[in-house]
């Protein structure tokens, strides 16, 4: 993800719903508005649901890239409170 400089990164490929999104929420909580979080997530249920949940909380999704190994990388910009 050379085109984005992330402020933090979280890997949620080792957990299942709903801890997937919970870990993303916790990671976003400590960032400032406008900062970027990259999330490594698995294909299937996580890639279907986590980006949608992130959007529902008002954050901005900048990119969702297929890593070609069954995982994706999501780039999120944190919204204000």
């Amino acid at each position, binding site marked *: 993800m050379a085109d984005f400089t992330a402020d933090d990164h979280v890997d949620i490929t080792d957990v299942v719903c*709903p*801890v997937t*999104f*919970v*870990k993303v*929420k*916790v990671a976003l*909580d400590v960032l400032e508005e406008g900062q970027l979080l990259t999330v490594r997530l698995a294909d299937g249920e996580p890639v279907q649901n986590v980006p949608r949940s992130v959007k529902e*909380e008002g954050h901005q999704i900048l990119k969702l890239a297929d890593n070609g190994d069954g995982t994706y990388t999501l780039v999120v910009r944190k919204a204000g409170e």
Partner: protein
Amino acid sequence: MAFSNEQLERYSRHILLSEVGVKGQKKLLEASVLIIGAGGLGAPAALYLAAAGVGTIGIADADEVDLSNLQRQVIHTTPDVGKAKVQSAKETMEAINPGVTVKACRTFVDASNIMGLIAGYDFIIDGTDNFPAKFLINDACVLAAKPFSHAGIIRFKGQLTTYVPGEGPCYRCAFKAPPPPDAVPTCKQAGVIGAMGGVIGSLQAMEAVKYIIGKGELLTGHLLTYDALKMEFRKIKLPAYKDCAVCGEHPTILAPVDYEQKECDLK
């Protein structure tokens, strides 16, 4: 404070809620609630507050678990009969959530000790079963400027209200003084349907949680009544009473007072 993986999983259903989230769960973990009475109301309240991760929970009661308690006091089990209620409650709460600190206080709450008991807690839950205790808790909370949840249950009926200092009437504004002894039976004499404690005590826990996370509307200024036979909830507006003896403009109650209580009610 960062959450451990165990905490993330345990509290995931809270953290997912936008009204709770990471910040709300942290507030719960840092909060303290005192539950007075480990009976029909206190049992479900204590279970839900422990499960919710309220960091410090005090529980005060002088009694021992009696077989006749088990029909509604779901925090105690048959092997607990004869054990101090606060000890039995503490064991169940710690089994549900080892991450919370439970302070068991085996004492009959009266005017001599209540101010010391409630000091240091963020929110108080009145889970007692008699009018003198309810007025005592009200007066002490008003005097100490502590928010609290009042509730009462009997037969198929229950009621509750929430007092927050400066934000509405107190229990005494509405009810003035305890009824004469024998005018109203206690649930010991009259009976109470077991699930009533579950309904109303859970609502008390809900008020405590909402107060702690600072979301939604509390029952301040309102009395919620529940009639299980009619399956009716009513939310009645409670006006502030400017001549209230404890929270009015010219209070006459300046320290907690004990009302007379019949011998049989004390057991």
